């Protein structure tokens, strides 16, 4: 007697009328036409909550901590009514054999229907034994559970890119999930950690619309990773006006000027921090006076000091092939930022030299 999606929505106070409207909208968005709506309604009234198996490789658990900070939906509502979080070693009551038994059961019973959320990543060094669970390498567990999953979510920069343990010289030969699992739909939700509400939105999207959100070429949801932090930063007018913090806690810092000169990576970082913000919209790194460190970008650990200006190309180590390509790309970005800053400054200068405007608006 599993509660169906319909029952869950009813429990949450959604009317039957709204439910049917939701079904027809979903049918339309999926290109199913009018006849699709009853089918979806039928499916949603009989379908159990989607099982989610949440595996942890080598990581720091910041993604789980972030997930439980979600305010909409509240984590308790997500866990009690949206999904069935059947395996998550950080939260689950069972341990040892009883925990592993659940994995076996879900994999068998919900073949092709469960979602696999991965936090952290597999180290390949020492035959995978730098992270072992139940006496076996984590990478084996990951491959086994992924085999029959419907889709994978790669939580955070660890699962998406490798993150801190894969920073040079990557002592444990850690790799991101997509290098090990290559034959499944996979959504990257990078960030160290990702924003709580973005995590919740990705889960909600998957179980509500029963499809993957639109992804960019790197596999990230376009909705949240389609623009740079700089593009929507509330301090952007100061960048354009050439007003910069020169040193932490200087007069410009107290006025909330742009942090570009103290190393802000907002101009090269794709994330939703400047719009969604953090912890129910309370703030985000730039608002609190520290530059963005670029934590949702690939290899952000190896792009020089967090306090180096983006234009300083010496920060990009030119060592190996893959890095050379990365460095070349970064130089282009760095140059673009410089040019961007220059254009902004020229604009400012030219507007200053222009004849005085009417002061009516001031």
């Amino acid at each position, binding site marked *: *007697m599993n509660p169906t999606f319909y029952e869950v929505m009813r429990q949450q106070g959604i009317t039957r009328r709204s439910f049917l409207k939701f079904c027809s909208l979903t049918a339309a968005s999926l290109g199913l036409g009018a006849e699709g709506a009853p089918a979806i309604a039928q499916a949603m009234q009989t379908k*159990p909550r989607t099982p989610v198996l949440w595996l*942890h490789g*080598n990581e*720091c658990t*910041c*993604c789980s*901590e*972030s997930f439980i*900070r979600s305010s909409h939906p*509240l984590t*308790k509502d997500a*866990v009690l009514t949206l*999904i069935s*979080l*059947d395996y998550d*070693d*950080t939260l*689950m*009551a*069972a*341990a*040892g054999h*009883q*925990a592993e038994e659940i994995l076996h059961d879900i994999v068998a019973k919900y073949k092709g229907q469960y979602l696999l959320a991965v936090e952290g990543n597999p180290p390949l*060094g*020492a035959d995978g*034994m*730098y*992270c*072992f*669970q139940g*006496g*076996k390498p984590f990478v084996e567990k990951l491959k086994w559970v992924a085999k029959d999953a419907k889709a994978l979510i790669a939580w955070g920069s660890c699962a998406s890119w490798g*993150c801190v*343990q894969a*920073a*040079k*010289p990557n*002592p*444990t030969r850690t*790799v991101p999930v997509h290098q090990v699992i290559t034959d499944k739909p996979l959504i990257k939700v990078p960030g160290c950690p990702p924003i709580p509400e973005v995590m919740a939105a990705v889960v909600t999207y998957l179980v509500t619309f029963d499809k993957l959100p639109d992804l960019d070429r790197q596999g990230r949801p376009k909705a949240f990773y389609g623009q740079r932090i700089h593009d929507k930063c509330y301090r952007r007018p100061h960048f354009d006006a050439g007003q910069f913090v020169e*040193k*932490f*806690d200087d007069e410009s*810092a*107290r*006025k909330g*000027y742009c942090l570009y000169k103290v190393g802000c990576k907002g101009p090269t970082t794709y994330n939703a921090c400047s719009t969604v913000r953090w*912890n129910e919209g309370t*703030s*985000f*790194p730039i*608002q*609190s*006076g*520290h530059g963005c460190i670029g*934590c949702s970008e690939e290899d952000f650990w190896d792009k020089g*000091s*967090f306090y180096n200006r983006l234009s300083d190309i010496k920060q990009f180590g030119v060592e190996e092939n893959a890095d050379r390509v990365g460095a070349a790309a970064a130089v282009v970005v760095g140059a673009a930022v410089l040019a961007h800053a220059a254009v902004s400054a020229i604009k400012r200068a030219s507007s200053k030299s222009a004849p005085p405007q009417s002061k009516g608006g001031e």
Partner: protein
Amino acid sequence: MAAYETQGFKIDDSGKRIVVDPICRIEGHLRIEVNLDQDNVIRNAVSSGVMWRGLEVILQGRDPRDAWAFTERICGVCTGVHALASVRCVEDALAIKIPDNANLIRNLMHGVLYVQDHLVHFYHLHALDWVDVVSALKADPKGTSELAQKISNWPLSSPGYYRELQARLKKFVESGQLGPFRNAYWGHPAYKLPPEANLMAVAHYLEALDFQKEIVKIQTIFGGKNPHPNWLVGGVPAPINLDDVGAVGAINLERLNMVGSIVAQTIEFIDQVYLPDLLAIASFYKDWGAIGGGLSSQNVLAYGDFPDRANDPSSLLIPRGAIINGNLKEVHDVDLGDPNQIQEFVTHSWYKYPDEKKGLHPFDGVTEANFVLGKNTKGTNTNIDNLDESAKYSFLKAPRWKGHAMEVGPLARWTVAYAKGIPEFKEPIDKTLRTLDVPLPALFSTLGRTAARGLECQWAAHKMKYFYDRLMTNVGNNKLDTANVEKWEPSSWPKEAKGIGFMEAPRGALAHWIKIKDTKIDLYQCVVPTTWNGSPRDPEGKIGAFEAALMNTKMAKPEWPLEILRTIHSFDPCLACATHVLSPEGEELVSVKVR
């Protein structure tokens, strides 16, 4: 393997072997193996850290001002603790003095973590060891309401509230999709709470899940996000501006008012929900005041934290000290720079030393990866059934203080403070013991560890108010400085420097050791709480705090390892913290990333 005696425990591995892997509801990956005698009493316990990431070697050659961000990622549960230890070790090396406001804001942020982390530990990582969720279905909501109103003024306590929650829980259980509550030990004879108390605890499990995300907003205000807020060598990154143009781009009165409001709500929640629940639940489990003590009644260690005055280590509000052989009359001084005090051993760890009989101080730290299994291991190299603890068996090193295995954490801190007779710690302990009507030795137990954490959470919540008030006084007096950037530029640094940054993480004593050479990190070492507590054996066969605490515990149903979970969870293990080490000599060093 022979039976032997150590630290007052008789180790005997001849009985039935039980393996619990994974230990869930902790941070990271931990494996526990125990041997039971014929009466199902634990006679040998083996704690093995089974993950490892190598952050210290990754730090080599990097900018010391960046180290906080790398080390912060050692752990996202106790987020910020490594960042704080890191900025402190760099400031110690470079003799940087931080402004008073920076000290107050750091203390506030650290207090936030104590409260949030202890709260989440109690309700979400530990409570299910004591609370039977399924039994809550049998509760009379009216009875739960009476119980709740008897122990607290918390307003969410009406019969209707509990009735509605119970109905929701019932639907959830009847769905057959139990999610994180599935396949657990419901109905185990060791669960002692009446259904009414179970229902109250389940309600507060959910309320605490909602509330913990509010507390951390203070870290978000000052650090921009949580988990993993931003820190700064020399102070804190957030500037303060109360009156001037542009104040909306800094910490202004709106922001400070928000902090004040969250502090007040936090005190209310801890005073009215956590503490009453803790005492109510503990009163049904007084027998656990005699179980799981391990090393806590013998050797405990605290480095101290929360400097009352900036840059003054003599003003630590949580005191420093070590207690040996249970002698509360003498608190030993602790020197983190003394090469003979803190040493790490690797005889039973998956690392290699030139001479494995000797320990090394962190400033002399040598670490070489060496994943080899003992000849008595059951299974294969990549499919282990039973570990061989007579050989190497963990990715944790074995830290020792003057040769002693030590317990760290809230109970260790409060024991040191109790022994020093500091009233703000001694009085709550005495009061709690009186309320539960148990003697002082009951403190040194699984129950005592859990109780000390609750008392500390309350202490931290009230201290946040103290730090907040002082911050407000400063800004009212136009003292606005939050960072000292005199030595920000690496060109102002000496050619070589070394420093130590210490602190008390929620889980216990934590320190970072750094050597800086030519403006880059030359050596970075961390010795962390769970390395102390989860330590494997040392060359003398001395066992660590987890292993000691499991000894002599009787299991009611060995196939349901509830007793093991209770004691291990009472330490709040954090394995990502404990197993981050790897040296340049590590055999897995590769110069090209696999892509």
